């Protein structure tokens, strides 16, 4: 057993990494649907955590904490995507081209396929509310929006989801 406090910290964090990796990576992969994005965000999560461990700020470092960091990274990712989409004036159904990496680790339900075709902003709010099961105030906090703005975004996102889901049925 190591007595060096630095080594000890490193060992503990690496043990957490081994346990938490499938949870964090799986959380991100299921939600973004893109292997390379999921890998990039997973790296960001663990390297940020490693930096806080190095600064001796363990805090309540746990799988739940890492998932919360992953959720922030995912929201940032969707925010960047939403900005790009606004720049390109992408139509709702065109955003499916984002996911270029084959995504065969996850079974493709129709609801999931529909979710992936929505613009980033709608995807973000529906994922937090329905996939993660957060309350509306929690979703608002994650997105940095007011409760009112979040409710109205949710309503529009649900509408877009239902229309697209229905279209898939009609095809």
């Amino acid at each position, binding site marked *: 057993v190591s007595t060096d406090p*630095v080594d000890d*910290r*490193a060992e503990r*964090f*690496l043990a957490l*990494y*081994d346990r938490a*990796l*499938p*949870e964090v*990576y*799986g*959380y991100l*992969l*299921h939600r973004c649907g893109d*292997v390379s994005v*999921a*890998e990039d965000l*997973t*790296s960001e999560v*663990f*390297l940020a955590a*490693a*930096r806080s*461990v*190095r*600064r001796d700020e363990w805090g309540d470092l746990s799988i739940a904490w890492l998932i919360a960091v992953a959720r922030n990274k995912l929201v940032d990712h969707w925010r960047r995507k939403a900005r790009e989409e606004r720049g390109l004036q992408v139509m709702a159904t065109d955003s499916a081209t984002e996911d270029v990496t084959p995504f065969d*680790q*996850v079974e493709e*339900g*129709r*609801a*999931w396929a*529909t*979710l992936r075709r929505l613009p980033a902003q709608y995807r973000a709010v*529906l*994922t937090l509310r*329905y*996939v*993660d*099961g957060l309350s509306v105030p929690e979703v608002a906090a994650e997105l940095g929006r007011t409760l009112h703005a979040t409710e109205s975004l949710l309503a529009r996102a*649900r509408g877009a*989801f*239902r229309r697209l*889901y229905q279209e898939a049925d009609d095809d």
Partner: protein
Amino acid sequence: MIDPLDALHRPSSPAEPRAEFAARLRQQIETELRRESITEVRITLTPILAVPDPDQAIQFYKDAFGATEVWLERLPGGAVYGELAVGDAKFEVTNEAAEHGNLGPQALGGTSVRLSLICPDPDAVAERAVAAGARIIFPITDQPYGYRQGRIEDPFGHQWLIGRPLDQAEQAR
């Protein structure tokens, strides 16, 4: 019928990443954990010179002092940021920014900071600087305070002391 939105609920969804990815990230984490703490960063102080035309100024400092470009960044608005090095001595050059009060000596009609460059052969450096367009304020001479030193003004109004300490034999003369 179950609401398709409710069918999405999946709080936990573990997945195995690619083995190469998992191994590479583990290595990056180990490196990160063993990096030196931020408090061990060496303290440095770097002057940032405001000039009307950074590209022209950078060329002058290369010609005059044999400066090398450490990095150069062109910002979206057209501003240029460059870091130059003369030996181990570093300084940066960038555009004037009146909105932040960053004006060059010519715009100010004077300069509040002089730059003191210590180098092995101040005579040669001053000569080269003058050839590149600098103006002599005081020629390089042995000074009573133990330095061989002079002062020049570069084409942008920044003043440079150029000198080196006198050795004991020189001081005894």
